C-alpha cells in the first residue's frame, strides 16, 4: 500500500512537471504564431496596397491615353493623386521657352504663385522631386513666397525622360499624408501624365500654329472665316449689332521697295500690334491679305466701329519706323460696315467693307469710310 502511494506521488509530480513543460512549449508556439500572423497581415496589407496602386495606374493610363485636352489631363492627374493623398492645395505649371508658365491653382494654393525661377532652382538642385516636410518651422523662401505654412510641400517635376514639360506643386496639411508607397505611386502617375501632357502641349501648339499668322500673331484668314461665320450667325439669331473693319496699309509696296522687306515686315507687325491694342478681347482680328487686316467687332454698331477705326487710324499714323538712314511713318485706309438685316451674309458684309475701303483710297487714303457712303 505504502509502495503504491509512493508510485502515485511520483507520477503526480512527473505529470505536473510535464504540464509545466507543455505550457512553456505551447506559449512559445503561440508567440511564434502571433509574430507570424502579424507578418502575414503586413504582407496582406502590402499586397492590397500594391493591387490598388496597380489598379490606379492602369485606369490612369487608360484615362490619360484617351484625352488630348490639357485641362482634362491635369484634372485627371490631380484626382488620381487625390485618391491616395489628401491634398489641400495644388498648382500646375507648364514648361515652355526655358521657364515655367503658370497654368492653374486650387485649394490653399489658389491665387498663389511660386517664383518660377525659384521653382526651377529647386528642381535642378534636387534632380527630381523635392519634398519639404514640416514646413511650419522651415525658414524657406519658397514658402515665404507662397505665404502659407503646411506639413508637406511637394514640388513634383513632370518630365518625359530628361525633358521637363511641367511641374506640379502639392500642399498637404496631414502629417503623414505621403508615405513611401504613395510616393512611388505619385511619381509613377506624374511620369505617365507627363507624356500625355507633352503630347497635349504639342497638340495645342500645332493647333495654335494652324490658326495664327506667324509674322503678326493675328489669326489667319482661314480661322477668321470659320470664327467670323459663327459669330455672324449668332448675331443674326439674337438680333445683335455686328460690324467689320477692313484696314489696308497705304503705299505698302513703296515701303517694301524703298526700305526693304525686313522693314516692311516690321511695319506689318507694329500695325497688327496697334490693332490688337485697340480691340477688345472678344473681337476677332486677322491678317486678311498681304497688308490687309480684318476686324470683326461683336455687339458693335457702325458708329462705334467708326470711332474705333478712327482711333486706330491715328495710332497707325503715329507709329515711327527707322529706314533709309532716317525715320518715316505710314498711314492706313479703313472701310467700315455693319450687319444689315436677317438676309445679310458675312460675305456681303465684308464686300461692303471692301467697297468702303476702296472709297477711302479713292478719296486720298489715310481715312475711314463707312458704308453707305453715297455710291453713285
Amino acid at each position, binding site marked *: 500500500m505504502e509502495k*503504491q502511494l509512493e*508510485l*502515485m506521488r*511520483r507520477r503526480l509530480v*512527473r505529470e505536473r*512537471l*510535464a504540464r509545466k513543460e*507543455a505550457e512553456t*512549449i505551447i506559449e512559445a*508556439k503561440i508567440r511564434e504564431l502571433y509574430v507570424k500572423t502579424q507578418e502575414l497581415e503586413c504582407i496582406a496589407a502590402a499586397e492590397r496596397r500594391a493591387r490598388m496602386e496597380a489598379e490606379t495606374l492602369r485606369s490612369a493610363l487608360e484615362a490619360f491615353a484617351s484625352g488630348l485636352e490639357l485641362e482634362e489631363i491635369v484634372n485627371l492627374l490631380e484626382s488620381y493623386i487625390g485618391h491616395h493623398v489628401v491634398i489641400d492645395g495644388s498648382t500646375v505649371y507648364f514648361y515652355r521657352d526655358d521657364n515655367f508658365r503658370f497654368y492653374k491653382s486650387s485649394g490653399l494654393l489658389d491665387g498663389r504663385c511660386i517664383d518660377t525661377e525659384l521653382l526651377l532652382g529647386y528642381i535642378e538642385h534636387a534632380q527630381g522631386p523635392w519634398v519639404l516636410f514640416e514646413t511650419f518651422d522651415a525658414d524657406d523662401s519658397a514658402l515665404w513666397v507662397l505665404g502659407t505654412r503646411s506639413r508637406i510641400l511637394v514640388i513634383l517635376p513632370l518630365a518625359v525622360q530628361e525633358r521637363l514639360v511641367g511641374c506640379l506643386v502639392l500642399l498637404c496639411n496631414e502629417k503623414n499624408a505621403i508615405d513611401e508607397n504613395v510616393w512611388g505611386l505619385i511619381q509613377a502617375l506624374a511620369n505617365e501624365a507627363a507624356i500625355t501632357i507633352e503630347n497635349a502641349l504639342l497638340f495645342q501648339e500645332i493647333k495654335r500654329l494652324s490658326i495664327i499668322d506667324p509674322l503678326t500673331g493675328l489669326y489667319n484668314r482661314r480661322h477668321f472665316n470659320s470664327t467670323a461665320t459663327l459669330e455672324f450667325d449668332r448675331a443674326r439669331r439674337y438680333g445683335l449689332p455686328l460690324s467689320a473693319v477692313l484696314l489696308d496699309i497705304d503705299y505698302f509696296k513703296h515701303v517694301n521697295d524703298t526700305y526693304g522687306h525686313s522693314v516692311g515686315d516690321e511695319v506689318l507687325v507694329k500695325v497688327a500690334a496697334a490693332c490688337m491694342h485697340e480691340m477688345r478681347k472678344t473681337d476677332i482680328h486677322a491678317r486678311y491679305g498681304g497688308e490687309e487686316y480684318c476686324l470683326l467687332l461683336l455687339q458693335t454698331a457702325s458708329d462705334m466701329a467708326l470711332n474705333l477705326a478712327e482711333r486706330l487710324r491715328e495710332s497707325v499714323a503715329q507709329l515711327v519706323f527707322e529706314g533709309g538712314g532716317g525715320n518715316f511713318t505710314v498711314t492706313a485706309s479703313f472701310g467700315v460696315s455693319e450687319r444689315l438685316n436677317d438676309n445679310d451674309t458675312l460675305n456681303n458684309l465684308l464686300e461692303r467693307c471692301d467697297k468702303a475701303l476702296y472709297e477711302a483710297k479713292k478719296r486720298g487714303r489715310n481715312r475711314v469710310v463707312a458704308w453707305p457712303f453715297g455710291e453713285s
Partner: protein
Amino acid sequence: MKGLVFTEFIEYVDNRFSFETSENLIEISDLPSEGVYTSVGTYEFRELETLVRNLSYLTDVPVAEILREFGRHLFRHFLISFPIFFEGIKSTLAFLPRVQDYIHLEVRKLYPDAELPDFICNVPAQGQLIMVYRSTRNLEDLAEGLIQASIDYFGDSLTVKRSTDDSGDEPVIRFFIAPK
C-alpha cells in the same frame, strides 16, 4: 522524437500491463528526461529504445511484440485524436498512401522540425500495395503494428509480408500487402 510517441508509450504500458509497471520502467531506465514527457515536446530517440528494451526485460515480452502492440495502440490513438485523417477513407489500401502524402505533410506544418520516416507506396497490381519503409531507427515492427491495426479497423481481408534489404547504408524494409 516527438513527445506524443512517449506519452502514448507510457499510456500503452499503463493499459497493457499496469500503472506499477510504468513507474518501475521509468525508475530503472534512468532517463535524461526523468520520464517527464509532454506530447508537444521533443525527446531523444534513445529514450524510447531504452524504454522498449527495459519493458521487455520487466515483462518477458519480446521487443518485436511490444513494438507491434504499440503500433496498434498508436493507430487507435490517431483514430480518436485525428479523425480528419480518416475522413472519407474506406480501406487500408487507400489509407496507407496518405500517411506520406497527406498526414506527414500536415504534421510538418505544425512541427517543422519533426523527423518523420519515409513510407513510399506503390501499386504493383490492382488490390495490392508495396510500402517501402526507410529508417535507421529499426521501427519496422511498430510500422507493421500500425498496418495491421489499419487492416483490422477497415475490416479488410489482407495479409502483410515483410522483407528486409540490408545491402545499402540504411536498411530498406518492404511491406507487401495483398489479399488473403
